[in-house]
């Protein structure tokens, strides 16, 4: 095999700024963004290399304040994001997970906070009502990571909570418990006594309505990113704010309460 010193025909592909794609994947795990005096938002620490002159600035610093106002509606977690601006080509990657870009055309998409890597400022980022999720609204491109390739599904569908990456165009997401199984003789016994264990699939997310649901092909979760605290107010999910009646609130943590379960006796007797 004849090989020239640096990079060779027949050898591994060598990239330079001319051969790197513009706003496309280099391979399944690396994404290349082309900046031409434009800006991108990216999560801290996801840039692995760049050609050209690119500046990285924390959001919320003077000059960029306007950007935060126009496309960054959650100043609460602005410290996890930086703005890349300048001209050149920049490679993004995240813990060797699959990365993909998605185009939104005057649409909306809600995504698990840890999965979003970068997005164009033409999109605006908002915190979802669902805790731990972010919503992108508008027109533009964003880059997201997933553990394994992403599958696109049409609702109505029930999905495993760990496999859910996000959803687009407002299907209605809700929790679904396999009530039939859990209250049946076998399932009920198991749930009450803990003997025999559970299949681990009694709890699902259900989506109905028109739209698309994004699933990753592995149930290994990516690290959650703090999405910032929501205001402590009654009626705001995940805020921990005291609801009107304190008594009901304590039951929400942990496993679902089934009617007739032992735990309920305690509550009924006020213990």
């Amino acid at each position: 095999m004849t090989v020239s010193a640096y990079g060779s025909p027949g050898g591994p592909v060598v990239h330079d700024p001319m051969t790197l794609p513009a706003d496309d994947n280099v391979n399944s795990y690396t994404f290349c963004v082309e900046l031409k005096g434009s800006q991108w938002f990216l999560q801290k620490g996801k840039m692995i290399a760049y050609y050209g002159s690119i500046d990285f600035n924390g959001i919320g610093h003077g000059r960029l304040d306007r950007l935060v106002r126009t496309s960054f509606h959650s100043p609460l977690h602005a410290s996890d994001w930086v703005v890349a601006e300048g001209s050149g080509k920049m490679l993004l990657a995240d813990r060797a997970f699959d990365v993909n870009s998605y185009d939104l055309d005057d649409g909306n998409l809600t995504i698990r906070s840890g999965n979003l890597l970068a997005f164009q400022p033409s999109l605006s980022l908002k915190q979802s009502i669902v805790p731990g999720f972010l919503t992108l609204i508008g027109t533009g491109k964003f880059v997201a990571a997933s553990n394994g390739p992403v599958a696109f599904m049409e609702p109505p569908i029930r999905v495993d909570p760990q496999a859910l990456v996000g959803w687009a165009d407002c299907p209605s997401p809700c929790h679904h418990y396999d009530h039939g199984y859990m209250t049946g003789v076998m399932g009920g016994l198991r749930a009450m006594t803990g003997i025999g264990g559970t299949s681990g699939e009694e709890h699902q997310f259900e989506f109905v309505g028109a739209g698309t649901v994004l699933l990753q092909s592995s149930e290994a979760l990516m690290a959650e990113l703090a999405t910032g605290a929501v205001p402590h107010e009654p009626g705001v999910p995940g805020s921990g704010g005291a609801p009107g009646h304190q008594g009901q609130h304590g039951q929400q943590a942990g496993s679902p309460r089934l009617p007739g379960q032992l735990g309920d006796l305690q509550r009924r007797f006020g213990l």
Partner: protein
Amino acid sequence: MFRLQGSKVLAVDMTGDAVKAKNGSMVAYDGQMAFKKMSGGGEGVRGMVTRRLTGEQMTVMEVKGHGTCWFADRASEINLVNLQGDKLYVESSNLLATDAGLRTGTSFTGLRGASQGNGLFTTTVEGHGQAAIMSDGPAVLLRVSSQYPLVVDPGAYIAHQGNVRQSFQSGVTFRTFMGEGGGEAFQIRFEGDGLVYVQPSERNTIAGDA
């Protein structure tokens, strides 16, 4: 002769010659093979002392024989590098195997090494032959040339070869200390003529979130 079987297993066909490989990385072989642990990275007493001093410890074995030997390590992606008299700089933890004819040594990296959390020294591989380096996720090869200098995140850097100058650039400003840093506080800038290998994943570095 090195070849990849899939992207995570290195197969080496040997006819009486030898390779140096990371200790314990053999997963299978056929034919006749002898495995000999080499102290000090196979660099003799001098190597033993410098590697101990520099912290670039590397336990290496020499594999010699007739047949095929397969190597793998923790399902890391493997990249083959052909060396034609030039020098490859790689972290010892990323080096899987080299032709026995290649010389290995250590070299000082200065601040770059410190920012990577890998110590101040790196391993060099020099000569004519093949080497196999490991990465977390398939490595991307980026060319550095005079008109295209390259900037790399220290956590994603795994190796480079060729005639390349590296300098350390820091984006640390007062904002970093206010928690509003650019997230890419430390960067390595490569200039000259050569290749840089980056992996699609970042090691934890000292300045990881700064």
